């Protein structure tokens, strides 16, 4: 994708093309943003962010530090309310929604700085993710009314099944806070999956992992996509991971999309190279 076309994108009133175009021909996109932007006291942290993610697409969001990647995630999950533009999840406008409602619409996420419920067990963390999949009220819980035991057992089994994706069922009773770093990241993914999302946002899932773990993570992300039939969008600095599994990549710099395309297109894009490495023809002092 050339820089010229990027300018075109900005001019089109409602751009609705996925990074991987063929994906949004037959299905409603899981996520669609139109002119999404947010200002913090005059500073435009994200500006004119247009992106469409098709069902079962794995998309990457990359860019130098401070480019606004996590801010985009916070906008999509409604931690921040955008100052301009809209976010559509499964075709529904999320204007005025909060994080909880966005999750119920189908967006689940992990966090760059892990946010587990550290004092609780691994299984309880997943059970909290299953919160909206289980339906019994406070009084049923307190007075152990009919349905309590049945639903608790179902929840227990479902939690173990989800943990088995990463082979973590043995750790079900371990305190989440005492898990090794990599396992904590995996547990966060399981917890997000438990909310039954249609789009999973992963904020630096491979951070702190060794190459072996990263490779396993790549396989697991693809496995999750295939098994749950969901779309995945990830922020990552590990280029092996991004180039290895992302079908479409979106590059962000200074809050703006500077390029979109497949791994090969991105790798050869001069604008991207400039953003990461600086201008080629800089005069040496």
């Amino acid at each position, binding site marked *: 994708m050339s820089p010229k076309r990027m300018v075109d994108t900005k001019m089109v009133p409602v751009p609705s093309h996925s990074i991987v175009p063929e994906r949004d021909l037959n299905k409603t996109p899981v996520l669609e943003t139109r002119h999404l932007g947010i200002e913090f006291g005059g500073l435009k942290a994200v500006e004119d962010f247009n992106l469409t993610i098709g069902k079962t697409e794995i998309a990457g969001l990359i860019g130098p530090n401070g480019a606004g990647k996590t801010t985009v995630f916070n906008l999509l999950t409604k931690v921040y309310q955008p100052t301009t533009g809209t976010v559509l999840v499964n075709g529904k406008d999320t204007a005025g929604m909060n*994080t909880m409602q966005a999750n119920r619409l189908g967006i689940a996420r992990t966090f760059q700085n892990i946010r*587990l*419920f550290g004092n609780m067990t691994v299984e309880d963390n997943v*059970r*909290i993710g299953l919160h909206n999949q289980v339906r*019994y009220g*406070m009084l049923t819980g307190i007075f152990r009314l009919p349905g309590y035991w049945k639903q608790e057992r179902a929840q227990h089994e479902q939690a173990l099944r989800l943990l088995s994706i990463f082979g973590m069922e043995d750790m079900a009773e371990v305190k989440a806070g005492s898990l090794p770093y990599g396992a904590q990241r995996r547990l966060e993914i399981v917890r997000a999956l438990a909310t039954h999302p249609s789009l999973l946002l992963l904020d630096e899932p491979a951070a702190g992992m060794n190459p072996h773990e990263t490779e396993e993570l790549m396989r697991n992300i693809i496995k999750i996509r295939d098994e749950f039939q969901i779309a995945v969008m990830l922020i990552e600095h590990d280029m092996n991971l991004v180039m290895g599994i992302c079908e479409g990549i979106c590059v962000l710099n200074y809050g703006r999309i500077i390029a979109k395309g497949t791994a090969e297109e991105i790798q050869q894009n001069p604008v991207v190279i400039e953003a990461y490495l600086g201008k080629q023809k800089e005069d040496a002092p």
Partner: protein
Amino acid sequence: MRKASKTAVSNLITYGIVVVAYIVCQVLIENGQMTRALKGQLVPICVYVVMAVSLNLTVGISGELSLGHAGFMSVGAFAGTIASAWLLAAFQLENEVIRLILAMVVGGAAAGVAGVLIGIPVLRLRGDYLAIVTLAFGEIIRNVLNCLYISLDGARLHLGFLNPNLPGELMVNGPIGVTGIDKISTFAMGFALILFTLFVVLNLVNSRAGRAIMATRDNRIAAESVGIQVTKYKMMAFVVSAALAGMAGALYGLNFSTVTASKFKFDTSILVLVFVVLGGIGNIRGSVIAATVLTILPEVLRAFSDYRMLVYAIVLILVMLLTNSPILSNLVNRFYPRLHRRAREKGGEAA
């Protein structure tokens, strides 16, 4: 489901401690080995245990520091004593056990409503701000009750605010408080209320709602991100806690012939908070033990007469220091490695 059974065992121990303590007390009473002063403390002990456990729901499980817990207790005490008198006058309900139960239900409901009303503004705040606002609301409740006049005219209740000129016999007389209370609280009912409170709190913790409450405490942003209605669950914990405090208040009020609003001052809230902190924040069993020991302690320390409260304070400081001392925990570890490990595991599970 090994974990579930482990929690169940831990809960059974808590119930067991309460039941054994009750049986021991009953045996002592039967044999006439219990002093009069201590016998008089039995119902207050039950009341403070319920107060501590219910406050632990707000402070430990939900993670909001509340300094106005005595306010809910006073609402329960006033509502409960009035309900008891009214039930006797209107329905000739002579059965004291049923009347006490109904009075506690009314006290709990009234405090629950107060909890909702106060929770709406308070739970918008966090941390220190929340603590200070709950403190203020506790004082507001006390001052409102000081201006309240209620009279019983046959079977009808008349309510006056800053106006003592009501038909019939004045029951609630402003700053003088509720007078002429039929003392129907018993130790057995106090024991039953403790079991009920433990049942509610321990079961709540091990349910979908309880996990949502603890998730909100541990990490609000993560809780929201998995679709938990944070405000709803904060409110739930706050209201259940207030309602239980109201029930304790009703039991407390019906243990004396008069109850004044000034009995439920700020220091009562702090006293209950001391029980919670000493017993371990989030540790229900600890609250039960701490509330019992610290309520009996002033009685036991009567031997020190004038220096009673000084010794009480020193004991408090020593207990706090010793339980947090690494040297002591190392010593325990050396002599009872198994005990220590188990205690640590339990600590992790309870928190």
